[in-house]
């Protein structure tokens, strides 16, 4: 787990997503893959939006990706209000999906599109952790 200055809100859970969030609490980013067409599904749900199959299986994600786009938030609200500046980003996972997240562990001004990043987990204190990303070594800090 990485200390973060960001708040760690507890995600809503339901029967579709509880396995995903349980894995995050163990420091694992798992992904759903369609057994019929092989595509990785995002966001996780037990219906393949590509082919309509309901035969899906959890796989271990690599936790690696690159920044697809990002924004440095300078003015915010709610629990994030005092956390500015912070970075919201889409990270394109090596498995394919582009996922919304935060980039942490580096100066917000050093984030760039195409930057290689790896997952880090921030405990919510309630049986789940937030999957955030930080620059891979030699790229951040």
């Amino acid at each position, binding site marked *: 787990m990485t200390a973060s200055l*960001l*708040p760690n*809100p507890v*995600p*809503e*859970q*339901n029967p*579709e*997503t509880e396995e995903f969030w349980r894995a995050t609490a163990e420091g694992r980013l798992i992904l759903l893959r369609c057994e019929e067409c092989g*595509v*990785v*599904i*995002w*966001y*996780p*749900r037990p219906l393949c*939006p*590509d082919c309509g199959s309901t035969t899906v299986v959890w796989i271990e994600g690599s936790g690696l990706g690159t920044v*697809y*786009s*990002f*924004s*440095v*938030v*300078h*003015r*915010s*609200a*709610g*629990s*994030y209000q005092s*956390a500015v500046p*912070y970075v*919201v*980003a*889409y990270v394109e996972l090596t498995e*394919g*999906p*582009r*996922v*919304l*997240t*935060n980039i942490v562990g580096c100066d917000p001004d050093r984030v760039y*599109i195409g930057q290689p990043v790896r997952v880090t987990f921030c405990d919510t204190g309630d049986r789940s952790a*937030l999957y955030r990303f930080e620059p891979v070594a030699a790229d951040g800090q």
Partner: protein
Amino acid sequence: MTIKGHVCIAGAYEHPRRLIPDRSVPQIHAEVALGAVADAGLSLSDVDAYFCDSTAGFGPVSMVEYLGLHPRYIDSTETGGSSYLVHVGHAAAAIEAGRCEIALVTMAGLARSRGEAPIARPTGSPESSFETLWGMLPVTAYALAAQRHMFEFGTTSAQLAEIKVAASLHAQHNPLALLPEPVTVEEVLESPLISSPLHRLDCCVITDGGGAVVVVSPEVARDLERRTVKILGRAEAVKHTNNGRIDLTYTGAATTGPLAFAEAGLRPADIDYVSIYDSFTITVLETLEDLGFCEKGEGGRFVLDGALVAPDGRLPFNTDGGGLCNNHPSNRGGMTKIIEAVRQLRGESHLAVQVPDCEIALAHGTGGSIGTRMGSATLILGREDT
């Protein structure tokens, strides 16, 4: 021209106020409803179809009762700020099908006096538990799109600022505009960064208010004295993240534009005036590209040199000052887009911004977020005598 081309918008009304703490939301619906039917030369008792979004009580069930209507057709399609363009399209379809003759579409909200954040992201949506965790404000989602557009096409903040400048030049002629002062590119760039690369002046206003339109059959339109506006083409679409493959460089207009133009039998070059949804400057830039007014990626260059400034720019847009300067009631700018297009086609926009000989207009709405998923809708409208 087919009969389809003759379904008309016969009445339009924009609430004159931008801060209305002394009214309830249903009351504002009623005020704009009365305004629109009066504008058409009709009365509420003539209305046989009603359309509204989901924000006023129990949608149309509540509002039909409040207004004392007895419609034989209702619709509360919810696509955020684009809902009202969808409603007009659905009203036209219902009228063509013989289900109704006089359709009333209303919208209202008190976003400014209630301090409502734009797009409180719905909890309980299937995607929400993966998207509400990261401190992503509405402006942040659009900023993600702007950042990617800049990366792929070299678009600049100064180019985005040109869109705000054009809107502000129009707003100075609108005595009701919330922000009637013209601004410069430099002023936009010097305004505080809210969510990079978007500045405060890249963002629309937050206002109370509302608006309404009346859509009628050709038979009804013929008997009205008021100048009407023909619905020549319409289309709607949902553009979403496509199973993790979101492409932030285009909007749902890439689907609705071609469909609406095909139905109207027209091309982008035929359009004299556009109302483009302008929640943020980037919304306008991507939409202009997607509708075919320029090539994808060329939007930044397209908006230079006063291209969007009425009356003489290549493509005058949002001559009421738009959501960027005039009015964005309830954080939903679709209705005001339709209303200004109607004004232009009736020759009733402010003299300083009235497009000469305006025959064909396009109105486009974007609801939701271009940073995630959106409901998009396009209307192509024609002057009564076209």
